[in-house]
């Protein structure tokens, strides 16, 4: 069966959603949150994913990362509920909550909203160390290029949220179109004999029709994915060029988990992205929790809000 006939084969039974990425959660089992002096929370409600991060005395204690639902308040509440289910910790136990991301003003139990730009810089500074200078956040429906100083304070930024090119949503569309699980896209993009040219249009709508044309022309699925990963990498590198790229390059957001895009960005920039053991998708919420920690140290605990979970 050729790649194209496989692509056109009628599916039987339930339609598989190849774009669905894995939701994750983690708790530091070596500690008990009850012994922490300062407990803070960061909630990042993005357009595609929502995260809740709990910091105990300024260190990562637990997180929950899940898909954003149909409204921001419920997504924030559900993200926190995931932490509650694993730790027993509730909103009144937390001294300060900072909301960030696209839905930051709609987090029902947050004390303050801070932009995702500042939070990603702060989170990346903690995750990658104080040598982090250039941050690329490849989010669900936007892409941000951020430059920060040694303290994680933003010194230059730009955000492209006008189109889905170079974003997680674009990758989800290609994943569904190629019928390849999204977690496998990166690896599959390297399984080609010759590296193809980038697809000429990074626009998600046109890239979709271009990908179909490539399959008809005899490209394998892997080759189409490679061409799309290359286009995505070229797109974000051009954004980074505007703020200037320095050593200490850190990628946050879901696409940091896609080696097909990351390796191509590294190749184009001539710089290797810094590695971290922490899930790159929680950088914004982690930064928000760290801002909350600083605010508690500065001004004391905030007034308790209604329980959310």
């Amino acid at each position, binding site marked *: 069966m050729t790649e194209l006939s496989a692509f056109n084969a009628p599916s039987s039974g339930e339609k598989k959603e190849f774009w669905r990425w894995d939701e994750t959660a983690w708790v530091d089992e070596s500690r008990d949150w009850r012994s922490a002096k300062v407990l803070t929370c960061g909630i990042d409600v993005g357009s595609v994913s929502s995260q809740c991060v709990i910091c105990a005395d300024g260190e990562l204690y637990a997180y929950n990362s899940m898909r954003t639902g149909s409204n921001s308040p419920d997504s924030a509440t559900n993200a926190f509920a995931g932490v509650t289910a694993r730790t027993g910790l509730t909103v009144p136990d937390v001294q300060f909550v900072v909301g960030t991301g696209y839905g930051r003003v709609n987090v029902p139990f947050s004390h303050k909203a801070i932009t995702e730009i500042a939070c990603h810089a702060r989170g990346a500074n903690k995750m990658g160390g104080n040598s982090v200078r250039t941050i690329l956040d490849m989010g669900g429906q936007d892409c941000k290029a951020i430059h920060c100083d040694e303290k994680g304070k933003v*010194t230059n*930024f*730009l955000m*492209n949220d006008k*189109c889905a090119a170079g974003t997680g949503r674009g990758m989800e569309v290609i994943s569904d179109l190629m019928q390849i699980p999204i977690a496998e896209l990166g690896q599959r993009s390297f399984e080609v004999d010759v590296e193809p040219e980038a697809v000429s249009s990074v626009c998600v709508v046109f890239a979709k029709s271009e990908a179909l044309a490539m399959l008809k022309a005899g490209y394998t699925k892997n080759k189409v994915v490679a061409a799309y990963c290359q286009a995505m990498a070229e797109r974000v590198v051009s954004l980074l060029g*505007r703020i200037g790229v320095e050593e200490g390059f850190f990628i946050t957001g879901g696409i940091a988990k896609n080696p097909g895009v990351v390796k191509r960005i590294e190749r184009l920039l001539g710089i290797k992205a810094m590695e971290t053991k922490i899930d790159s998708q929680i950088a914004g919420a982690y930064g928000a929790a760290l801002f909350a920690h600083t605010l508690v140290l500065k001004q004391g605990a905030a007034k308790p809000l209604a329980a959310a979970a």
Partner: protein
Amino acid sequence: MIANYGYKDGSGEYYISIDTDKCIECPVGRACLAACPKAMFETLVDDYDDEVVCIKAQFRKSLAYDCVQCKPAGGHTRLPCTDACAPGAIRHSW
């Protein structure tokens, strides 16, 4: 901090950059707010608690069209916003 508001699309890059370090202590009383004929600028308190100027959200994805009347095609040789900004905090990328 340099804040770049705008976008890049198939026709080019359209960013208005605001150097907020120069903007914080504005010596001309935020003259840019009145200078822009489309009132695209507004003040906000940023994430570091500084009051600075930014581009209103509704204009950030259409700068190429919104700024056209102040560009050479509109008969201007100088931009009213950059002229009004004495500290030189505002720059256009196109």
